């Protein structure tokens, strides 16, 4: 077949690259949902651990934990 003119070829090229973008976005979205689930499970486990040992203080930070993100207990 002869080469398609730019006006006709443009939508096909755009569609191909949009499919790629959509695939990546869907994948990232699924990963984000999984991350949320992990976060929720961490909260549940933290609550459970607190219920099991009501008098226990939080564990001290590791030596190599200098660059950690602020957590809820830091804010209080």
């Amino acid at each position: 077949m002869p080469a398609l003119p730019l006006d006709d070829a443009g939508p096909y090229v755009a569609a191909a690259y949009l499919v790629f973008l959509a695939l990546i976005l869907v994948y990232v979205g699924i990963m984000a949902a999984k991350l949320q689930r992990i976060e929720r499970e961490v909260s549940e486990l933290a609550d459970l651990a607190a219920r099991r040992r009501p008098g226990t203080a939080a564990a001290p930070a590791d030596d190599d934990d200098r660059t950690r993100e602020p957590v809820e207990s830091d804010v209080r």
Partner: protein
Amino acid sequence: MFGRGLKFLSILTVVLVIGAFALVFFYAPNDADQGFVQKIFYLHVPLAIVALAGFVAGGVYGLRYLRSGDNAHDLRSYVAIHLSLILAVGALITGSIWARASWGHWWVWDEPTLVAFLIVFLLYACYQPLRFSIEDRERQARYAAVFAVVAGAFVPVNFMAVRFAQAAVTHPRVLDSSDSMPGEMALTFLLCLAAMALLFVTLWKYELASKHASIRLRQLRRQLAGDDDALLAVPRSAAPQEL
């Protein structure tokens, strides 16, 4: 464990993917024969090559699992195959769009390269159901590793069979013709291939880190569970659940 270096890798991947696509549209010349629609080549071919390489990598990790019994290799194999399937879907759809624009058909059944790729895709589409059908974790990992090794060996054999069987094909042969590509096209193609490979590695590491975190959480849950059976319940899954 699996998340080391992810920040640097992510930045490098974004830069390389954007750079490669910029070269596609602003540097590489239009193909004399196909015109602007040939730009799909820079996406479709790296997707297909990286997907096939990912399937082979899944087989290599499957073999390492069978030799060592290390569940981390089973997880690596599982994630590599999972990601390769996603890229293969991308290769099939973009290839179909390109075929429609170039040949006037979405799919051509008498074209061996297309059918061979579809066979490989359908073969690997059985991987997750196979894993899900086996409840025992050890058997699941072992059978999945055997599948990954056999199917991984089938990928290059299939590829070579298509090459040797056909004298005249419609589908372009990139690896044969890369020497005759103009310098700008070859450079752009190689950069796109590198970007896609890096994207694969980055997403592979992201998913490994996510799965590893889930597995560690489950182990913690088990340690904290005590007599609480509700906390010990592990949902049936195709993904590895132990490390």
